[in-house]
């Protein structure tokens, strides 16, 4: 997964995010902020569900499903790119 565009995002603790290249701004949920911070910290995609499940005290399956949907959204927004070999 290529997270280079994500690295330029300006993000605050409240989840407000600004893309300095496109000028788009958007509001992330608490879990969205958590996922982005984990990605930027170098956590592998496959390890995200477990980390999120622990942080938010949810079932692993729920975390896995939500993360999948969120990563798809990030991909659609061109903030991450996933190669055809990656398992989304």
């Amino acid at each position: 997964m290529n997270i280079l565009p994500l690295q330029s995002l300006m993000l605050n603790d409240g989840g407000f995010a600004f893309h300095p290249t496109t000028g788009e701004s958007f509001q992330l949920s608490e879990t969205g902020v958590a996922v982005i911070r984990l990605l930027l910290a170098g956590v592998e995609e496959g390890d995200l569900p477990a980390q999120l499940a622990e942080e938010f005290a949810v079932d692993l399956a729920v975390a896995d499903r939500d993360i999948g949907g969120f990563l798809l959204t990030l991909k659609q927004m061109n903030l991450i790119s996933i190669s055809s070999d990656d398992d989304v």
Partner: protein
Amino acid sequence: MTTSDISYVETTMPTLSGGVSPSIAPRIAITGLARGENPQPGAALVKSLRRAWPDVTIVGLVYDAQESGIYADDRPDVVFTIPYPSSGKKVLIERLKTILELEPFDFLLPTLDAEMESLIQMADELRDLGVHAILPGADAFSARSKQNLTKLCRECGVRSPMTKVVHDVREAVGVMEDVGFPAYVKGPYYDAYRVFGVDDLVVRSRELLAEWGGPLLVQEALDGVEFNVLAVGDGAGGILAGCMLRKTVVSSKGKGYGGVTVVDPVLQALCESLIRELAWSGPLELEFLCDRSSGEYYLLEINPRFPAWADVPTLLGMNMAKLVVERVQGVAVEPMGYCEPGHFFLRHNVDLVGKIEDFGQLISAGTLELERASSNIKS
């Protein structure tokens, strides 16, 4: 921008005191002082110049006594009426001679599309009067005209919407088979209307021809977000300063009433290609549309002067008005790069009052000098 510590980028706003120029305060005439529904750039430039030189002498040259900047708190030091460009070169030169006897100035910074061409043609006469007009070269001015824009884009590898130059209503209707609806019909200097059918197109074309004359441009309407870039060219193909803006608030007339600064390497490369090809000297504004479906930038037009938001980069520490004046003063200027991303602007309109006697004097005598309140522009 740090990546290990995800938080808002701490942006240090450069102190405006750092922007005061060490060079000699110029005596400069500026046009375009109206700031209403269709804001002109002049009043923004007055602000920027006063930030650079608190003791600058600003002479306002106005076509209309209702140009609101005449009566603003930070108004010009003195205002003179001048004849419309349609009156001809000779009439303007005679009027400027009269004005210069009353209030000498050394530089002229025009801001209105409708006056640029005639001023470029009379640059030598202006110089003979001792006035250095801050203008682009004639060839560059022509090459970026609306009629020549498609050719320029092709030469620079920049996309542009399909555009047809038409001279009358019949021709406008005739090109619609290629262009398709919805489309824009634009005047040679100002005004653009989105049209959805032949009836629209006919009405608007007639209006534009009556107001501005021809030719008109009929342009395909793309769906996307507008990005404007204000830049200063060094005359040799390089860029001395730039500010990229994504429009976030657009008035009903299509004017930008709010925006956010960005830095996009793709957009930067397009601007550099165009400015290099034009070898542009001085200020210009490049208007782009980022197509929503493809994400590609399309050049809509190049304005050969500062835009109405010219004071925004100054407020961010990049005073381009000061830069262009220092350049013509012969001060050595260094490239300033681009404004930092992540700053927004919003246009705020205020009400002004004045005495009808002052208004009347400007109309009858052609000159008005109003004492300025203590300037609220901090240097």
